[in-house]
């Protein structure tokens, strides 16, 4: 079974929302953090975390094991998740 995806998202972003919906529709359990809803030190740490995976600091940034997917790219997600 593929590892549980971790998503860095923005609560207001359509692509982030569509990505979460896509995972739910496919019964994929995932964890996520809406970076825009964080403040201060927590936000700073999250930004550094996202940048380690995606220097462009764009959303959604999706981590599945050692795979990093930037943006809601359905085909790449399907492949990484074996869907």
């Amino acid at each position: 079974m593929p590892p549980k995806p971790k998503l860095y998202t923005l609560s207001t972003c359509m692509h982030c929302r569509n990505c979460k919906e896509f995972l739910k529709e496919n019964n994929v359990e995932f964890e996520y953090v809406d970076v825009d809803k964080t403040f201060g030190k927590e936000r700073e740490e999250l930004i550094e975390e996202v940048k380690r995976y995606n220097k462009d600091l764009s959303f959604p940034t999706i981590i599945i094991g050692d795979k990093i997917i930037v943006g809601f790219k359905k085909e790449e997600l399907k492949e990484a998740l074996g869907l």
Partner: protein
Amino acid sequence: MTAEELYEFLKKVQEPKGYFFNPDRKMTLQILEGLLLNKERYGYMSCPCRLAAEDLDWDKDIICPCLYREPDVAEYGSCYCGLYGSQEWSQGKIPQQVVPERRPVEKRLKTG
């Protein structure tokens, strides 16, 4: 202002300029709700798909419609967040695709 009101207002202003809303009305309204939320949070309607720095001067380029809308619509058919596109895109005549971030990387690194 509600998202519906913003929809009607912007439609009238933007369509004559050649920018048309996402054909999925529900998604469009959700994006507009994001803009209204950003206005409430930051005082300006920054792009809902970008992390705002909470600094008006810094974020001037991503206040909707952002500085990158024109080249993105010309190249990909739609803007980065998917709110606006060309008429063909809006009518489903060209496929929706993932628009890469055009905002210069140094502009994205301010943590706010």
